[in-house]
């Protein structure tokens, strides 16, 4: 057996160091950017309707990094799509800086899980796209686009087409394409989900670097708990069927974050709490565990692998 840090020896995830507490105090003192009130989403109607989201309430402050986690089917993607205006809400309110939002708009940028760079445009033109459709001149757009590409270290690829880039590079371009529009809030729907583990780690560090440098509030959907803790100020935990807010956790891990923190007691304590919340809601309707136990031994090799 390897050594475990037993749950009993972990600190409570609610314990915050003085620094962290001060940081949260500063965060909450900042203006509210996004205010979600009693948000519900029901798909279909009549008997066949399913409630994807029920009575969701939360607020994010300016320059906050909020992660949303939850078991599959908890409506994370529906939530972020409603925030983006790509899907209609059934009831409730979404206020951006106090104003009700309807339909998609440039003040809410979005980065998708799949690659959504325009394949017919070069990297530079992709970044210029938002600026141009919002009335900036092509000269000004180009200048800004190159600046943004510099920020993510891709200025050398300005004239390449998306298909010539790796997955990680594509998502970096997608991020700056959204940011070039100077949105109030950046919505990210599992943006690193399709990347390999190493690239994903680098992208997380990269994203934090960008976030630190500019005035942007981020709502980041993920199913990777480590990723959520590593990135977030606060984590919104949803339960499944229907999607409801289980808890809004303040991540006690100090900033700046580094990969070394993944094994610190505060990190592990937060992760333990997240797992507890997610398993709780999974246990309600989980059949996978049962089917798993029923697999018969099918090997003819006699020694045990475990």
């Amino acid at each position, binding site marked *: 057996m390897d050594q475990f840090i037993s749950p009993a020896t972990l600190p409570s995830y609610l314990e915050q160091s003085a620094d962290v507490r001060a940081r949260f105090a500063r965060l909450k003192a900042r203006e509210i950017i996004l205010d979600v009130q009693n948000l519900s989403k029901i798909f279909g109607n009549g008997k066949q309707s399913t409630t994807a989201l029920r009575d969701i309430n939360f607020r994010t402050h300016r320059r906050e990094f909020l992660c949303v986690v939850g078991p599959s089917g908890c409506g994370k993607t529906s939530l972020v799509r409603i925030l983006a205006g790509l899907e209609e809400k059934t009831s409730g309110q979404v206020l951006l800086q106090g104003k009700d939002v309807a339909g998609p708009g440039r003040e809410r*940028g979005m980065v998708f899980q799949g690659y*959504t760079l325009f*394949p017919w445009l070069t990297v530079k033109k992709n970044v210029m796209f938002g600026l141009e459709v919002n009335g900036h001149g092509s000269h000004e757009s180009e200048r800004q686009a190159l600046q943004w590409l510099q920020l993510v270290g891709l200025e050398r690829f300005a004239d390449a087409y998306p298909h010539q880039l790796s997955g990680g590079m594509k998502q970096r371009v997608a991020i700056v394409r959204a940011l070039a529009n100077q949105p109030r809030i950046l919505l990210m729907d599992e943006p690193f989900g399709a990347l390999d583990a190493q690239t994903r780690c680098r992208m997380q560090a990269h994203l934090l670097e960008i976030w630190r440098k500019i005035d942007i509030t981020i709502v980041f959907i993920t199913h990777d708990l480590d990723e959520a803790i590593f990135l977030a100020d606060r984590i919104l935990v949803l339960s499944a069927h229907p999607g409801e807010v289980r808890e809004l956790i303040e991540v006690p891990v100090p900033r700046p974050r580094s990969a070394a923190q993944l094994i610190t007691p505060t990190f592990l304590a937060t992760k333990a709490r997240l797992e507890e919340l997610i398993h709780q809601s999974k246990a309600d309707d989980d059949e996978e565990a049962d089917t798993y136990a029923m697999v018969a031994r099918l090997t003819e090799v006699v020694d045990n692998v475990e």
Partner: protein
Amino acid sequence: MSAGWLQVLKPLSPRARRVLGALSFVLPVLLWCIVSYVPGVWHPQVLITKPGSVEYLEPGMRMDREDFDNEVADARESDKPAPEGMPANPIYLPAPHEVAMALYTAFTTPPVSQDGQWLHQSLWHSIQIILWGFVISSAIGVPLGVLCGTYSTVARLNEPFIEFFRYLPAPAFGALAVAILGIYDGPKITIIVIGTLFQQVLIIANTTRKLDVALVEAALTLGTKSAKLLSRVVVPGILPDLYRDQRILLGWAWTYLIVAELIGTTSGITWFITLQARYQHFANVYAAIIIIGIIGVGTDMTLALIGRKLFPWDRTLDKSS
């Protein structure tokens, strides 16, 4: 062995591609050569060289081998000179070298009648018919197809009728087109438009629907207004596929050519083919058919090449052609 030749969905090496590509033409020609040049194969007729004592025979005539054998036997029995001849294929299957010759002589032979046309003039007339038909069809079909693919309301308003109309055979409108547009090029172009347009709208609408909706959503979250979505996302997004569709549809238009040219006064390459067939110059008929094929494939290959230059970002081009 079979694993080496028949591998599911495996791309070929460049050399294998070239060899097999050449074989796909060489094999049919080889078959044609065998049937034409190997005396034992087929050759169901006899080409008379000397009529002998049979009165109705003339040199150069063809007759079934069985009848010829009977005539020979009859002549031998009555001690008269027997007819002579050599095994031959029916006149409608000329040998490859005859067609190859015809490919050249068809262009160098002056028209039979005074007001007749040279082959290249006939061809140019045919190409113009196709081109006009395709241009008119595209001028309506491409925008309508894109709109149908983009907006469900436009699609629902148009597609059921188009779906119905595309089952009506275009030549059925021939007489009507002549009554309205006269006997010259008008009705011919109309037939090509009718034959192409309705398929065109449906094919292009489907291509448009295949555009990744995530691209549209990305554009929306970047603040694109829906009026600009069409020109900035939908059209550029489908352009390579649209171009490919147009190539296929141009081929489609070609297949309506002969029928179209028969309507009203027969014209163009069809006029040439009909005339040559009437004089039993079948080598010329084959030559003309082959020329149509060469023009078609040549156009398509040229367009494919241009497409590769036009759309450097298009990945699907690598797989096809």
